């Protein structure tokens, strides 16, 4: 019987059914659930790696050793793993190796909307793009066969609307492939110049063979309808195109986006009067068609930015869109914000109060940039807070050292903060780094990491001691504060910024959403004591609002963290 299944879960099911044995990933929206779901199968070894580069190298090792392997990441994670990827293209694999990269057109939870197809093209690695859950499952299985047959890692590109949509799938049994014993092969696996020079022509020959395959393969298909309009599309854009045009257009659905099928495209173009390319983000198929000498419509009418939808495609291609009504007034926005009781809030309040310049990083705490705290002033990529702080202080010296800090979460610190910290220790800037240790990877939905002491299955695992690590790097000033204690935070920030050497403050308290965290009873407002000074409102806590000139506590949200009590000079907030 068919089941309704999340795209990422279906992908995970495909990995399981294909006999994948080793999985190593780093979480990142919208890719995370692939690994979380496959970890539920006891037959598959799964782990969270400290970052995507490590994950891909683990998958490489497992593949060479002879087991089918997988690593998953979001689009920006593939930048981190680009180093192994580009040379993995040369070494090829032993047992099949599949990589998931999940793009986020529309930036629902990302810092940019880069198009991962460029990585596939540049690394000369085949890329598949499913357009629903059923394809996610089937493509994952077939990707292993492709990987082994063509001796290459295979990338499957998901996007938010495929990863986080549920559609119907039919599951099958797990079939373990025959064992592929490891054999020493220095010419294939040791990429020093003399060997790599001989591997490069093999890569080019492989691409030629894959291009020939692409013209007649499972992944690409033609659905002929009216021939007045021909559409070349793939991924979620295929669904929007079908929704708008049904069989009023002919469609070439591209399921293998690298390499593209030259002959199939030319044959399709010859059968239709007009050719339109519908693809989110960059004009990859469009430019390919133009290079083939075809006249096409694409980014001249459709946007490069954001995600597509049925109405957007209809409107841009001259099809009527449904009527709708509007209230005709501007409504206040509802941006995401730190949760009630979030341990980051007290620390950000302290930084804001001390008028610190804060270089931020990637995680829930990026929301420290949102008013009223508005404390974070830069966010670039994983780890950039620490390295950026070093550069900031090297540029400005004493002018910035006493008031500038980096903030980075525990998981992000493990991902790529340690190398930046090593740079501060080595090249000696008087920098203060704050590690926001909430004992979990928060934003992506609570994944374990090397500092938490638990593995992906929730079993006890190795635990890295942050204090000892910082001290071993040469930091003499390492201190731990409780972010629920504003006085303690204030003292630590003032003292460490004043100190004449580099320092690390670890702001430590578990994420308030963790199941084991006990909440206090909600606070209440003593109405006659509240003078309406709005001091508590400076925290930007969603449990606090202001009605009839008095503070009000939402007792469904308040967890009794007590941070607001410390700001109230009139004892109006009571436990």
């Amino acid at each position: 019987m068919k089941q309704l299944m999340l795209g990422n879960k279906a992908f995970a099911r495909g990995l399981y059914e294909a006999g994948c044995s080793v999985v190593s990933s780093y979480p990142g929206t919208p890719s995370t659930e692939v690994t979380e779901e496959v970890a539920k199968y006891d037959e598959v070894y799964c782990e969270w790696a400290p970052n995507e580069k490590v994950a891909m190298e683990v998958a490489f090792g497992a593949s060479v050793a002879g087991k089918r392997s997988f690593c998953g990441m979001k689009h920006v994670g593939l930048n981190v793993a680009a180093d192994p990827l580009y040379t993995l293209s040369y070494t090829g694999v032993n047992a099949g190796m599949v990589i998931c990269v999940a793009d986020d057109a529309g930036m629902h939870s990302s810092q940019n909307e880069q198009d991962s197809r460029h990585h596939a093209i540049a690394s000369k690695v085949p890329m598949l793009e499913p357009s629903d859950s059923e394809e996610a499952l089937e493509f994952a299985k077939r990707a292993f066969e492709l990987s082994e047959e063509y001796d290459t890692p295979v990338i499957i590109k998901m996007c938010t609307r495929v990863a986080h949509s549920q559609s119907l799938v039919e599951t099958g049994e797990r079939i373990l492939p025959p064992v592929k014993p490891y054999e020493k092969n220095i010419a294939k696996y040791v990429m020093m110049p003399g060997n790599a020079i001989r591997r490069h022509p093999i890569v080019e020959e492989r691409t030629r063979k894959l291009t020939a395959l692409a013209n007649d393969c499972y992944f690409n298909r033609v659905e002929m309808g009216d021939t007045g309009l021909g559409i070349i599309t793939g991924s979620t854009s295929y669904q929007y195109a079908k929704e708008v045009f049904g069989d009023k257009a002919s469609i070439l659905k591209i399921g293998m986006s690298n390499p593209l099928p030259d002959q199939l495209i030319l044959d399709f173009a010859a059968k239709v009067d007009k050719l339109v390319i519908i693809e989110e983000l960059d004009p990859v198929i469009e430019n390919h068609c133009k290079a083939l000498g075809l006249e096409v419509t694409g980014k001249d009418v459709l946007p490069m930015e954001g995600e597509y939808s049925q109405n957007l495609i209809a409107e841009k291609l001259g099809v009527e869109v449904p009527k709708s009504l509007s209230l005709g007034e501007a409504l206040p926005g509802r941006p995401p914000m730190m949760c009630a009781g979030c341990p980051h809030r007290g620390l950000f309040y302290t930084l804001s109060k001390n008028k610190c310049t804060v270089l931020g990083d990637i995680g829930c705490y990026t929301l420290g940039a949102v008013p009223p705290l508005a404390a974070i002033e830069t966010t670039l990529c994983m780890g950039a807070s620490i390295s950026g702080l070093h550069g900031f202080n090297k540029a400005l010296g004493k002018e910035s050292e006493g008031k500038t800090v980096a903030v980075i979460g525990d998981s992000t610190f493990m991902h790529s903060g340690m190398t930046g910290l090593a740079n501060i220790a080595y090249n000696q800037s008087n920098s203060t780094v704050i590690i926001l240790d909430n004992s979990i990877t928060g934003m992506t939905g609570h994944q374990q990491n090397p500092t938490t002491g638990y593995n992906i299955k929730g079993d006890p695992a190795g635990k890295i001691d942050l204090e000892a690590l910082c001290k071993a790097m040469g930091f003499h000033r390492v201190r731990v504060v409780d972010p629920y204690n504003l006085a303690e935070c204030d003292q630590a920030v003032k003292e460490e910024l004043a100190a004449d050497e580099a320092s690390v403050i670890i702001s430590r308290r578990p994420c308030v959403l963790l199941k084991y965290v006990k909440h206090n009873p909600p606070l209440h407002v003593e109405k006659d004591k509240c003078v309406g000074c709005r001091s508590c409102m400076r925290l930007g806590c969603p449990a606090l609002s202001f009605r009839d000139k008095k503070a009000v506590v939402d007792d469904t949200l308040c967890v009794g963290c007590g941070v607001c009590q410390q700001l109230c000079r009139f004892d109006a907030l009571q436990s």
Partner: protein
Amino acid sequence: MTKNIMIVGVGGQGSLLASKLLGYLLLTEGYDVKVSEVHGMSQRGGSVVTYVRFGDKVYSPIIDKGEADFIVSFEQLEAARYIDYLRPDGRVVVNTQQIDPMPVITGAASYPENLIGKMKDLGLNVDAMDCLSLANEAGSAKAVNIVLMGRLSRYFDIPVDKWKKAIEDCVPEKFRELNLKAFDLGRA
């Protein structure tokens, strides 16, 4: 013909259970179903949208402006925010609860007044009720999602015992009784 239900609310209010329930129910009714959710940053107290689509064959996983047959809203302002997604003959099922967004908390904006009335003035079908009180009556403020499902069920030709069977299959055993009560209170 594809039918569209949009579930809107504030991150953390439990819209994922509502969409899970609807997806499960509509699948057992024999429809092709697609459900699209939002994970990650928006879930942190932000405005969240879930799309549920069903019919003979569903292509797009999302609902666009002017397409929704139903908007099920956990909160007044969120219903108003997405009202242009409703078909002019569609229906809004809305919890009258108000949750201040950050611009209101900081004083940069005020919570708009009479949103339910303004939606009715557009000639739309608006079914507004205090789901939070009913959820508390059922035993937990968290059951707002199932109260709303109870209300929504009035507009479907699906027998009530099938809705209840779906609840029994989708929620953990220890919350079954509470949720069935919440469903009855919403439907009544």
